[in-house]
């Protein structure tokens, strides 16, 4: 999937803004947003927030997790854990990119926040690489990927699924040949891998 498409899905996340104007609600097909009262915070979809921010019609309140101290803790936890920890948001990468991209003036210490989110992403990517390596070595045909976010899952596609499809092809051809020549023969194997433990 194109990263733009992952972003498209992430743009539906609700975030808090403080509008600088008054207005009646907007009746979107996807649900009502508003009413807007100047200086009164409300929750809107991320794509609405970005659009309003670009028109300088609101201030964006960063999500709770987008805080230097919390992110520092998250990074430590991710580093000390062998498995993937649960991210505070299913779309943390998309939210960070879009919010920091358009609302740097609303968020203190954006550069440091950007760096630390990049660090967390890098730690997780390196765990992903070694998990993939293990899966392929074990020829696993199943894996739990519970705490991975959509952007992370998308980053190992198509490589991992394709590699496993080729392994499956080889294994099932071997099975077909064995069955033909010797009747039914089974080879012991542990076919389950996991990204979470």
């Amino acid at each position, binding site marked *: *999937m194109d990263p733009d498409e992952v972003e498209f899905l992430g743009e539906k996340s609700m975030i808090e803004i403080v509008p600088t104007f008054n207005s009646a609600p907007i009746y979107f097909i996807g649900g009502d947003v508003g009413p807007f009262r100047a200086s009164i915070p409300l929750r809107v979809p991320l794509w609405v927030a970005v659009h309003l921010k670009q028109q300088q019609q609101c201030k964006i309140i960063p999500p709770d997790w987008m805080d230097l101290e919390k992110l520092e803790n998250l990074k430590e936890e991710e580093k000390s854990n062998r498995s993937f920890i649960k991210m505070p948001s299913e779309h943390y990468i998309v939210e960070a990119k879009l919010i920091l991209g358009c609302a740097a003036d609303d968020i203190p210490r954006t550069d440091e926040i950007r760096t630390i989110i990049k660090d967390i992403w890098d730690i997780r990517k390196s765990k992903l690489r070694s998990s993939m390596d293990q899966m392929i070595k074990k020829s696993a045909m199943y894996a*739990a990927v519970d705490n991975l976010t959509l952007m992370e899952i998308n980053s190992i596609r198509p490589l991992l699924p394709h590699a*496993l*499809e080729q392994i499956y092809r080889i294994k099932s051809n071997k099975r077909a040949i064995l069955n033909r020549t010797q009747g*039914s023969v089974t080879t012991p194997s542990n*076919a389950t891998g996991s990204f979470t433990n």
Partner: protein
Amino acid sequence: MDEIDIESALNEIENESDDEDEVQISLPEIIQLMEETWLNEKFSPEILPNKMEIVELLLDQITTLETNLKKLNNSDFKKGLYQMEVDRLRFLISSYLRKRLEKIEIFCTAILEQEKLRSQQGKDNYLSQNELQFAQEYDQSIKDNFESVMRFCPGIIETQIISPNIHSMVFLKSKENIDGIVIDDGNDDNDLIDLTTGAQVLIGYKSISNLVKNGDVHLI
């Protein structure tokens, strides 16, 4: 603009047993469903049963909204936002329909054979009426072209039918608690796994194709 109250929509779902065919779902839920339908079609190797009723419902909404938009003053900041939502929905629908056309073209002959079988067994077709017509015309045009090529050596017929690889590996998210999914690992010892609601796994498509079709899981 047609607005369906979420609360009354939920009540409708609770009363499902009284009125099974006429379940009202709220528009935000329909959009959510459209997104899942889009992802399912994007990642499943084979063509899935069509969801034209959702597509048409959303297209009607878009048309209504666009008509109303013309009445809005150009200087109204809301106009741009409404237009953006329309663009987002139109992308979602177009991308879904494009993905289906791509599959229909690549696996044309195989899909048409399966559809014929489904009709004979009295099952619902996967393609919409219009898609079916497109598929038949496309299939015929390719066959005509090949026949014309092979006119230099008459009497020799050889065709290749391209079928999807249903053993593709896919990522999914479970929407229910599901027990006893069989993992085909390519050997003969097949493990069983259970999924809890919200679980995400990487798995062979063949093991879960029926769960995608009945909506217990969706692909991600």
